[in-house]
C-alpha cells in the first residue's frame, strides 16, 4: 500500500515538474536571457594582496596608522565607524596619551546631556567612546548626500563580496564611462561610473582624487593607489581587530590537535593489532 501511494505521489511530482520544465524551456528557447550592461561591464575586484592575508598574515601597523589617517581625514566626513572605539587604536601602535589626544580632538563631539541644565549637549570624545557618527541620523545623512546613505565602515571588508580587494578596487576604479556603454547604464546626476560596483553607478563621489591628498607622517608617498591600499588594510582591521589573536591561537590549537590525533591513531592501531577487521 505504501509503495502504491508512493508510486502515485512520485509520478505526480514528476509530472508537475516536467510541466514546469517544459514551460520554462520553451520560454528559455523562445526568449533567451540577454546579458545586461551591469553584467557585461562589471569587473571583479583587482587581486591586490595585504600583509594580513593567509594563515600567517599579520597587520602592518605602520600601514594601519596611515590607513587610519586616510579614514580620519577623508572617509570620516561621511562614513561612521560605530563598532570601533578610540581605545581600540592602541592595537595600531598608538600610545595611551596619543589615543586620548585623538579622541579629545576628534572633529565630531559625542552627543551628551548638559549636566547643569539637562539639555542636549555635546562633549569631547574619551578613549572609551566609539567613533561618533558624522550625521545625527539616517535622514540627516541622506539629506547631505543626495539621498544616498554612506554605509558604516566598521565591517565593510566582511560585508562585501571580495572584501578588502573590493574596497581597494572601488576606491581606485572611478573612470569615465566607456563609449560603448548603453544609455540606460550611464551614470545619472550625482552618480559616478565605477565598474567594480554592482550596478556600475555609485553615489559616492571619488573620495581620493589627488596624490598627496593626505600628508603621511612616515614619509610614504601618498599616491591614490597607496592611500587606497592603506585605508583598505585599516578596514580589514576594523572589521576584525582580533584577527592576529585568531591566527596565532589557531596554530597552537592545530599543533596540539595534530599531536593528539597522531597519538589517537597510534592508540587505535595498538588496540586493534590482534583483531582482523
Amino acid at each position, binding site marked *: 500500500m505504501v509503495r502504491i501511494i508512493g508510486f502515485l*505521489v*512520485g509520478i505526480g511530482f514528476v509530472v508537475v515538474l516536467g510541466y514546469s520544465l517544459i*514551460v*520554462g524551456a520553451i520560454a528559455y528557447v523562445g526568449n533567451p536571457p540577454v546579458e545586461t550592461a551591469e553584467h557585461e561591464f562589471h569587473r571583479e575586484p583587482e587581486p591586490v594582496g595585504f600583509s594580513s592575508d593567509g594563515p600567517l598574515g599579520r597587520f602592518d601597523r605602520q600601514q594601519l596608522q596611515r590607513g587610519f589617517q586616510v579614514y580620519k581625514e577623508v572617509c570620516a566626513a561621511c562614513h561612521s565607524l560605530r563598532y570601533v572605539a578610540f581605545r581600540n587604536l592602541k592595537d595600531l601602535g598608538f600610545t595611551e596619551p596619543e589615543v586620548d589626544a585623538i579622541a579629545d580632538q576628534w572633529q565630531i563631539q559625542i552627543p551628551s546631556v548638559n549636566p547643569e541644565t539637562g539639555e542636549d549637549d555635546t562633549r569631547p570624545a574619551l578613549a572609551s567612546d566609539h567613533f561618533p557618527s558624522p550625521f545625527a541620523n539616517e535622514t540627516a545623512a541622506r539629506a547631505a548626500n543626495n539621498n544616498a546613505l554612506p554605509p558604516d565602515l566598521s565591517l565593510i571588508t566582511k560585508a562585501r563580496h571580495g572584501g578588502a580587494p573590493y574596497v581597494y578596487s572601488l576606491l581606485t576604479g572611478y573612470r569615465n564611462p566607456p563609449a560603448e556603454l548603453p544609455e540606460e547604464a550611464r551614470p545619472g546626476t550625482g552618480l559616478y561610473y565605477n565598474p567594480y560596483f554592482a550596478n556600475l553607478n555609485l553615489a559616492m563621489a571619488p573620495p581620493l582624487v589627488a596624490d598627496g591628498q593626505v600628508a603621511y607622517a612616515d614619509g610614504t608617498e601618498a599616491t591614490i593607489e597607496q592611500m587606497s591600499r592603506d585605508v583598505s588594510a585599516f578596514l580589514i582591521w576594523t572589521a576584525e581587530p582580533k584577527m592576529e589573536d585568531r591566527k596565532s591561537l589557531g596554530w597552537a590549537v592545530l599543533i596540539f590537535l595534530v599531536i593528539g590525533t597522531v597519538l589517537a591513531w597510534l592508540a587505535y592501531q595498538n588496540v586493534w593489532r590482534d583483531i582482523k577487521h
Partner: protein
Amino acid sequence: MSFPWAEQYTPKHPFMKYMDERLPLPRLVYNSVGAGYPTPRNLNFFWNFGSLAGLALVIQIITGIVLAMHYAANTDIAFASVEYIMRDVNSGWLLRYLHANGASFFFLVLYIHMFRGLYYSSYKPPREVVWLLGLVIFLLAMATAFMGYVLPWGQMSFWGAQVITGLFSAIPLIGEALHTWLLGGFSPDNATLNRFFSLHYLLPFVIAGVIILHIWALHLPGSSNPTGIDVKGPQDTVPFHPYYTAKDGFGVGVFLILLAIMVFFLPNYLGHADNYIEANRLSTPANIVPEWYFWPFYAILRAFTVDFILPAKLWGVIAMFGSIILLFFLPWLDKSPVRSGNYRPQFKIWFWVLVVDVVVLGYCGGSHAEQPYLMISQLATMYYFAHFLIILPIISRTERPRPLPNSITEAVLGKDDSVTGGAAQPAPAE
C-alpha cells in the same frame, strides 16, 4: 538487550558496588559505550559519524550557552551585541566562530551519517525506529539552525526569515493566519526574534533527548555493519570499549582538526557577506540564499515555477517538506532483504546517481533563481522523487543481489591479510 556474550559489569571498588545497587549509572555507561556493548568487528570509518554528530551537538550547546550570556535578543541591539561578542567579550570571537562553523560541521556530519544509513540500508528491520528517530533529529536540527541564523539580525537573517516563514502563508485557508501567528506580527520583528531565540535555546535539548531514544533503539538490535548481515556469534563482535572508543577517538581528532582549520583560518568562508550588514526591511539583498546545508531543499522549493491546479509556491512547499517526509517511509519503500549496497549491483548505481543529484541540487540552490539553474534543478528534483518513490521500490523487487557471506567473520577472514590488515581504509571491509 544486547547479545548474551556481552561482558558483564562487575563493580570492584566498594563505592562502585554501593552505587550499583542504588543508581546503576556506571552500569548504564558500561553497557552503552563500554565493554558491555558488543559491536560488529568490521565497522568502517562511516560508522564514526554518529559519535561525531553527538560531539558536534555538545560543542554547539556549550558555545551556545556562553554566547547566550552575552547576546541580546532585541532587534535594536541584536546586531550590535554580536559585534560586542566579537570585539569586547574575552575570546568571544572564538565562541562565535566555533558556533557558526560548528553548525556547518554538525550538518556535514549528519549528512555523512545519513549517507551511511542510505547506502547500507540501516533503516531496514529491525532498525526502522532508529532511522525514524534520526529523521526527527534531522528535522529538529534544521529548525534549530534556521532560527539560530536569524539571531545575528543581519540582512540574510532577516530576509531568510522572511522567505522561510513566508512559506507557511502558501497553505490554503489558514496560511495567512498561521504565518502571522508564527511570526507574532506581519513580518519578522522583535516578537519573532524573541521567540526564535527561546526556541533556538530549547530545541538542542529536545534533540539531546531524541538522541537518547535513538541510541536506546539502536542498542536493542545492536549496530549494523558494512556487510549488512546479522551478528551470528561472539566471534563477529568486539567490545565497544576499547575497540571503538579508540577508533572514535581518532575520528574526533580528525574532526577537530578540520573544524579548527575553518574556525581559525577561514571563519567566514561558509557564511554570507550580507549577514555582516544589519537587517534592513527596506533593502532586499540581490540573492537571498540560506546556509549551504539547506541548498538542496531550497532548490526543490524553487523548482516549481508554474501553477498546476495548485499555486506553484504551494507545490514548492509541499515538495520541500515532502522530500524529507518521504524518508520516513523508506523502510517500507525499499523491501529488498539485502541491506548493504555492496551486494546490490543495481541499487549501487542508482544510489550514486542520487548522491550526484543531491550535490547538483545543492549547487542550484546556492545560485540565482534563473535559467539554466531552474531547469537543472527541475530535472534534479524529478530524479530525487523518482529515486525514492519509483526506482527504489522497483529495483528492490527486480534486482538479483550478489551472494552474501555466511558471517561477518567469514567476510573478514576470507580475505588476504595484506588487504584487511590496514585499518586506515575508509572503504568497507568486505
